């Protein structure tokens, strides 16, 4: 049945997006941690981070389009861009839209990074730490077969790896070797109030 076919594609593309986006987050964390090996140069981490993100966008696009055109869900195109505007599973779908909007902001700013400067780019890039968990929750909340074994296993694996790598990144302290010295020095040269 065509309805079921579209639905399968939506769920499959969603699952693939979840895996790819988890990979993007992990690669981003590895990039900050300056990981490097004999056969793994740093530009490989950066390059993969970008390219996997772009592939994820393709699968997300597929996921969203098939969901919108699926006659069963009665979603309009507006529902894909405006959070909480659908009648179908309003809340959980809305989360997906939010996650997607945040991701769009991240990707667009990355494409024009040279024009907006590093600081602005970095500030918006931090939204990734909001986008990814919201996407995960969206995945757990929508879909009729969410509680199936394979999807739970998939989600648990992605979340597990991301949490481990993120845990290491945030616990292992600043990876910039100048961070401490720079902070200490700054503290010593801030403006003195005149008595």
């Amino acid at each position, binding site marked *: 049945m065509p309805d079921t076919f579209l639905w399968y594609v939506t769920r499959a593309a969603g699952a693939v997006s979840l895996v790819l986006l988890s990979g993007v987050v992990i690669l981003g964390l590895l990039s900050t941690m300056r990981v490097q090996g004999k056969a793994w140069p740093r530009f490989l981490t950066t390059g993969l981070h970008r390219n996997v993100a772009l592939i994820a966008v393709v699968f997300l696009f597929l996921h969203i389009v098939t969901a919108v055109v699926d006659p069963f869900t009665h979603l309009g195109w507006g529902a894909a861009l405006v959070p909480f505007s659908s009648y179908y599973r309003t809340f959980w779908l809305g989360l997906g839209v939010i996650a997607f909007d945040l991701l769009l902001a991240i990707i667009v700013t990355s494409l024009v990074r040279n024009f907006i400067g590093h600081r602005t780019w970095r500030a918006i890039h931090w939204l990734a730490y909001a986008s990814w968990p919201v996407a995960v929750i969206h995945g757990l909340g929508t879909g009729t077969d969410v509680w199936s074994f394979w999807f739970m296993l998939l989600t648990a694996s992605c979340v597990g790896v991301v949490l481990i790598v993120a845990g290491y990144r945030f616990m292992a302290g600043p990876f910039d070797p*100048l961070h401490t*010295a*720079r902070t*200490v*020095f*700054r503290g*010593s*040269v801030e*403006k*003195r109030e005149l008595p």
Partner: protein
Amino acid sequence: MRLLAGRTLSAGPEGFAEHTARLGSLPHAGRELTQVVVRSGLTGRGGASFPAGMKWRAAAARHAQVLVVNGAEGEPHSKKDRLLMSTRPHLVLDGALLAARAVRVKEIVLYIGEHHTIARAAMERALAERPAADRKHFRIAAAPARYVSGDSSAAVHLVTTGIALPTNAPTAPAIVQNVETLAHVALIARSGEDTGTVLVTMAGGVARPSVLEVETTSTIADAIALAGGATEPPRAVLLGGYFGAWVEIGQAQGLTLDPAALRAQGLSLGCGVVGVLPGSHCPVCETAGIMRYLAGESSAQCGPCFFGLRALAEASGRIATQGSNSEDLQRLHRWAAEVKGRGACKHPDGAVMFLQSALSTFGREFASHPAHRARRTA
């Protein structure tokens, strides 16, 4: 005309009335003063010896908005700027007002070391004696007690953002001029020509370490004599402070304290500190001590400066305390060449050139240094 003419230096700051009686009132000088300054050949006394007239022209072309009177004096042994501010504050204020008018700047910031309370009090009192029309252009900012606070870009950064960090490019269109340079301007505007004197801080192995005003035709030997003579036969002179160069005493004694003449010999008066190294002091240990200080004063914004100077300090420290070894000597040469020019400001360059002058002047000592405990620096 001399900067330090007038009442004796120990008698405190010269007041406005006395200053005006001695030198006349502030000359009316506008943009044509820039030409006078160019013709006088006045060079900056902050360390870089940059021609003041050229700096004024560039500042006017850039529409500079603030004049920073640089009295930070972060160089540990230098005392001349403090002395000028605490004994002849009106010379400094005159110079600042003249420069501001010539360059069409309305805002003047007196950048004074945070711990230099006497100098600051004298400048505040002098400001209060001035007519309101002049006084309103000034404000005072405290320079944090770090070596790089005196860097021009750090001074401008403090004025604009409140943190004295050196930057790649100036954060505001500003002109920064050393206190002594402006004091000279105050006299040049009245006489039409250069004063022909410089202020030097005599330090180290002299009987009376002090600030001296000497003619630019004087030699270092003259200056040492004026400071009471050397306490013992000297080995060398550090000319220009910690960013300066070591010179063998034989060559140093004949050098005239004239910025142009020194530049022709590849040397510089720098911030005016003339440090005399007594013969009994070990030049390797002195150099290592100064390198350790300079490494600690890095603003830690650029890797090559922070890590490079630290490594250079550690290697020279090892040679000083544990004796010469070829690996550390090679490292000193290699790292010095690699670090130079790879910081955002001139701090690593100054430190490296200081070290390179030590390696060149004291090559024999660096190659054959015995192990012994590091001595205190002069």
